[in-house]
């Protein structure tokens, strides 16, 4: 695997019970870039992310991350390789406070006071709601604030790869814009990012590279700029024009 490729899936198949969901996914995530995974509902995007994280095991094929074969590894071991994951439902612990949610993700800290203050200041600048509601129960936050907390929590310590499933889902336009700016800052910090997204404008504003999925396969991979510039390709892959 080339050193420019951080994560690589080769011919990955995933079954969930009797259902064959992924039919040989091939995907490369370049180091230091933001990659968008696009596709219709049911195309296999979320299953791909969960397979990467070991939440569902691939029945065939391989997943390599940063030189490690993670195909058969358990989820905590995969996360320990410095991969942060934000699921579609955000995974917020609603009975815990915002501070406690953040502390959980800070594996090196056993108390809130031990979290990296400079890192927190950087996060607060991107997501002011996290600081504002620090001592509030996370379950009381709005949908947008929860999404901000979910992404902030994922980045509470430096990670090599951030995987986020539909960060703009259900968010108001102003919050989406805030999210776009936050992801741009995170990308500038050097972290590689893999986003599943249905919001095409969100994708266009952020993506360096793009992979399009359909029926459990990657049917197109290339640069976001190339896809944005080719209305025919957009129409054939996504059924719409950007």
């Amino acid at each position, binding site marked *: 695997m080339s050193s420019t490729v951080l994560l690589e899936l080769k011919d990955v198949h995933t079954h969930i019970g009797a259902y064959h969901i992924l039919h040989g996914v091939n995907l490369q995530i370049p180091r230091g870039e933001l990659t968008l995974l696009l596709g219709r509902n049911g195309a296999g995007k979320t299953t791909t992310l969960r397979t990467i994280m070991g939440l569902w095991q691939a029945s065939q094929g391989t997943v390599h991350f940063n030189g490690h074969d993670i195909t058969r590894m358990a989820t*905590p071991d995969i996360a320990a390789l410095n991969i942060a994951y934000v699921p579609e439902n955000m995974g917020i612990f609603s009975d815990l406070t915002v501070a406690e949610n953040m502390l959980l*993700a800070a594996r090196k800290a056993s108390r809130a006071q031990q979290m990296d203050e400079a890192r927190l200041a950087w996060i607060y600048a991107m997501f002011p709601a996290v600081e504002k509601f620090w001592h509030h129960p996370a379950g*009381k936050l709005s949908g947008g604030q929860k999404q901000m907390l979910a992404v902030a929590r994922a980045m509470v310590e430096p990670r090599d790869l951030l995987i986020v499933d539909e960060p703009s889902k259900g968010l108001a336009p102003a919050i989406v814009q805030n999210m776009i700016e936050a992801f741009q800052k995170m990308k500038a910090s050097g972290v590689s990012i893999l986003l599943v997204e249905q919001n095409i404008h969100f994708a266009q504003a952020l993506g360096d590279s793009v992979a399009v999925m359909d029926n459990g396969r990657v049917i197109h991979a290339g640069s976001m700029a190339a896809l944005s510039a080719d209305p025919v390709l957009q129409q054939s892959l996504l059924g719409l024009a950007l």
Partner: protein
Amino acid sequence: MKTNLDIKPLLLVPVLALLALPLIGSVDTWLTLSVAGLAMGMIIFIMASGLTLVFGLMDVLNFGHGVFIALGAFVATSVLSGMVDWTQSQELWRNLVAVGSAMALAMVAAAVIGLAFERFIVRPVYGQHLKQILITMGGMIIGEEIIKVIWGPLQIALPLPEAMRGSLLWGDASIEKYRLMAVVVGLVVFALQAWTLSRTKVGLLIRAGVQDREMVESLGYKIRRLFVGVFVVGSGLAGLGGVMWGLYQQNVVPQIGAQVDVLIFIVIIMGGLGSTGGALIGALMVGLMANYTGFLLPKLALFSNIALMAAILLWRPQGVYPVANR
């Protein structure tokens, strides 16, 4: 700090106690029954608190929890019968050393057996509720038979140490010393649990794991290790509860755990599966209800707790403190 503490369930215990007062009629009798109920509730809480976390963390239905209770009670019979000089002393501190030794050994024995129980009986059936029910009940039957082999099938007396016998009189109300001690021990256990769950990272992980174990794993923590730890601690607490329940009854039979299992399940269902705060409220209500109805309508004592559970579940179908994301 802002909290989202739901205060309504906290009012259930005093409301139940106050509702019973006019029915009982005498304030002194009511006070005696209330202290007895709170003591019983605290002991049930000690036994139930581990079980509710075990269910909350891993969806494990452990119907064999009673075996740890029985083991604790029988270990206490051996320890206390070997410390007769200490238990028959009039000095309270010597009695406390004897009971403390029995509690410590019972907790260690139950925790060790709990470790083996989790490894060989529970682990092979993760995620399979029907098999969990069958195999854990089978484990309890085997455990009871082993207890009969070691200690015999007959009832064994477990008398209270000298200085813990008798009652304190407050007006005409008679409050047994041991029951006061049970309340104190229960409060200490609850305080330690509350501190661990709210002030330590391990506690934070347990609370998070009860809500969403998949997310805890995605953050890099091995929840099965955490679960084994909780299972072992829960078993140890059941052993402690067994000592206290045995001393409360002043005799021990191999079925002591199975007998109290029904009350424990009522408590954790009423409290909200996975909630220790809910388990405390449920246990105190069960203890009070058992004592009040035992006095007013003895034939309805067990039914009254089932009726109480039904009433609570009509109000809050997932228990008084439902655990989020479940």
